């Protein structure tokens, strides 16, 4: 059975979903990610969906769940690489991804996460982090 690898890169976690997901795999991914965020203290999660030619409500829910759990653990989530046909379909489907930011590709996504991280670190007051 395949597992989805989670990469650690500069304090961020990077996941590339390339396989047609089914329930067990999705559950597994959510569990592992939550674990890893906790373990590594990662401040950001980057989900690369550039290989997905389909995103249905199940995958959408999974992504929203990951973002919610990451948020609880004080990490931001960015989804990158959504294909145009997928984006158009999602809009028609009426699916929105609450609490999930998006970027065009991995580079931009990482830049987004890193600048968010940087902004927070610049703040003198630790309490101010909770306002972000």
């Amino acid at each position, binding site marked *: 059975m395949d597992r989805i690898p989670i990469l650690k890169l500069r304090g961020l976690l990077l996941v590339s979903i390339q396989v*047609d997901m*089914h*329930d*067990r795999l999705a559950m597994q991914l959510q569990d592992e990610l939550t674990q890893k965020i906790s373990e590594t203290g990662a401040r950001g999660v980057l989900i690369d969906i550039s290989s997905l*030619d*389909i*995103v*249905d*409500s*199940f995958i*959408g*829910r999974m992504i*929203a769940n990951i973002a919610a759990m990451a948020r609880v653990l004080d990490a931001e989530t960015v989804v990158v690489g959504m294909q*145009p*046909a*997928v984006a*158009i*379909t999602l809009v*028609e*489907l*009426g*699916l*929105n991804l*609450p609490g999930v930011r998006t970027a065009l590709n991995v580079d931009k996504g990482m830049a987004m996460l890193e600048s968010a991280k940087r902004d927070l670190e610049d703040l003198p007051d630790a309490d101010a982090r909770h306002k972000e």
Partner: protein
Amino acid sequence: MPVTKSEELELRSAADVVSVRQAVRTWAIEAGFSLVDQTKMVTAASEIARNTIDYGGGGTATLELIVESPRRGLRVVFEDKGPGISDIQQAMTDHFTTGNGLGLGLGGAKRLVNEFHISSRVGEGTRVVITRWK
């Protein structure tokens, strides 16, 4: 309406949703759909296939290439012998993002296809037919 090609697929486990998606993709390409239309059809099929398994207790998905001169299309018929849906109207308006128990993707799937028919009887089962024309 003439069916030029037909295939029935089993819907028992989550892995079958993947099979149905791949089959619908292939047939949508064969029917000459644009990339966006393919994606819409496959996504709609995925939604309903999941429903059939999660709420219908499993069933079948029958793919059909249809011709209604001069247009051609792809139709998928989902059938299950599950508990059925007591209030179809409500089921169609449920939004999966609200995160409540049902979260059926029926309303969304309807927007992705040209024709959508659903019939259901409590205690007997549900039948959903989705069609997209080229």
